[in-house]
């Protein structure tokens, strides 16, 4: 395991540096704004980007890259860069999303031409508020808010800086986001219950309640199960404006330090579904120890490959294969849905199939799990672990702790 840890860390570091070198070497080949403008408005002839703030000029219109004006506004996984076309009265006449790192499963509707068309004709003096003059998209609130804020603020600055039209800086009414607190309370209560009950197998019902809450809160209500893409986003410098994003990363990191794969055993909504499906009274396949051990390494290989792919390309969407993202965003490609249903059905025959062999979060949390010799796995382990398993495979269900000590 030590060698695996070092190998994966080295692969991640190497991928990161290759990615940085690669992005530096192609930085001169950033999207050609003039070409994009030609596609957006073929009848207009724009000059080179110039002036302060930076913008393109044509007769009767200006255009600008929102990132040049408001680089600090961020969505769930970084800034949403827009190319905006504006007329001389500062009405928005064209929008193109040039670049973003939001998870496509959540923002696919926000990117659609129908949605963008509804923003054309707006003026920066308008409120740009979800549910008022901007259509809200369920499960993409943070991204839509970032899009609206980016569009309003960049247009306002372009109107005053280029066109000399002063648009009053009216603060958008920011609704209090209760979601990080709901998640925080749920996580802290579950962790506390785990610590209180960990030396006895009597209170398994407490874990079942926590798992059910994981499905309801983290899966259905928040639609934000922890994903390795959260971490890759940070590594790539895509900082978020969402408190929930950081709450997820910090809670999982702290719980791994304190309690190993507690997240997998008590919180993960997909793990919960897998476990509940696995409890159905169907005869399970007998996995030989040799094959089981060998294939459990597969999740580390996938994690390493995905890390390399994402960090070298700088594209988070390339590594988007996690089944919980597809399931709880209710969106994914046909193949992604096939994998979701296969991984759920597999639990009928092999306990926690996805968590054992394929899950990148399981690999990541397993790699840095704290050793605890109390877990010996002799009491119907939900992970199908052999006796005295490596701690990286233990999800802290508490069924065997006391038995092992006695």
């Amino acid at each position, binding site marked *: 395991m030590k060698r695996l840890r070092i190998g994966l860390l080295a692969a991640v570091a190497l991928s990161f540096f290759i990615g940085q070198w690669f992005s530096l070497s192609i930085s001169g080949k950033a999207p050609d704004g003039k070409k994009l403008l030609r596609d957006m408005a073929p009848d207009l002839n724009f000059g080179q980007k110039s002036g302060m703030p930076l913008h393109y000029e044509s007769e009767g219109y200006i255009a600008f890259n929102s990132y040049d004006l408001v680089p600090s506004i961020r969505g769930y996984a970084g800034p949403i860069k827009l190319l905006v076309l504006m007329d001389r009265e500062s009405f928005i006449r064209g929008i193109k999303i040039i670049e973003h790192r939001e998870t496509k499963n959540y923002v696919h509707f926000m990117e659609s031409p129908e949605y963008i068309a509804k923003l054309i004709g707006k003026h920066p003096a308008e409120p740009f508020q979800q549910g008022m003059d901007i259509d809200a998209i369920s499960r993409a609130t943070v991204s839509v808010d970032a899009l609206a804020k980016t569009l309003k603020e960049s247009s306002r600055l372009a109107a005053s800086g280029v066109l000399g039209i002063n648009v009053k800086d009216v603060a958008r009414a920011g609704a209090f986001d209760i979601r990080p607190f709901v998640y925080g309370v749920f996580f802290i209560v579950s962790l506390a219950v785990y610590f209180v009950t960990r030396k006895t197998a009597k209170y398994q019902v407490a874990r079942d309640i926590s798992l059910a809450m994981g499905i309801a809160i983290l899966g259905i209500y928040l639609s934000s199960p922890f994903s390795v893409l959260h971490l890759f986003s940070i590594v790539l410098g895509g900082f978020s404006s969402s408190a929930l994003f950081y709450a997820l990363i910090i809670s999982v990191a702290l719980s791994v330090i304190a309690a190993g794969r507690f997240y997998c055993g008590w919180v993960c909504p997909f793990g919960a579904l897998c476990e509940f499906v696995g409890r159905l009274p169907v005869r399970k396949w007998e996995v030989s120890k040799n*094959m089981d051990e060998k294939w459990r390494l597969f999740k580390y290989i996938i994690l390493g490959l995905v890390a390399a792919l994402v960090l070298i390309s700088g594209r988070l969407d390339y590594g*988007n294969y996690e089944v919980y993202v597809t399931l709880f965003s209710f969106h994914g490609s046909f193949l992604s849905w096939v994998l979701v249903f296969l991984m759920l059905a597999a639990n009928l025959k092999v306990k926690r199939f996805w968590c054992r062999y394929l899950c990148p979060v399981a690999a990541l949390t397993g790699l840095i799990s704290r050793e605890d010799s109390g877990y010996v796995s002799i009491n119907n382990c939900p992970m199908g672990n052999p006796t005295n398993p490596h701690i990286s495979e233990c999800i802290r269900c508490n069924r065997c702790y006391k038995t092992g000590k006695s």
Partner: protein
Amino acid sequence: MTDDKKIRLLLLISAILTALIIFYNVFEESIDIDIVRYLDRRIHYESVISKKGLSLHEAKHWRKKE
């Protein structure tokens, strides 16, 4: 078939599916664009070009022939 063989088969299918999903993520944009382009050409071919006795080719080729 033994349980071990069944599990190995399931693991292989899962691994292939995972690889295909990642492959699709990487090539999604070009695949989608190529499919749309092909369908556009095909529809135009079926409705206009085939009646002129020409074969399915790139649009430029048709324009030259037409």
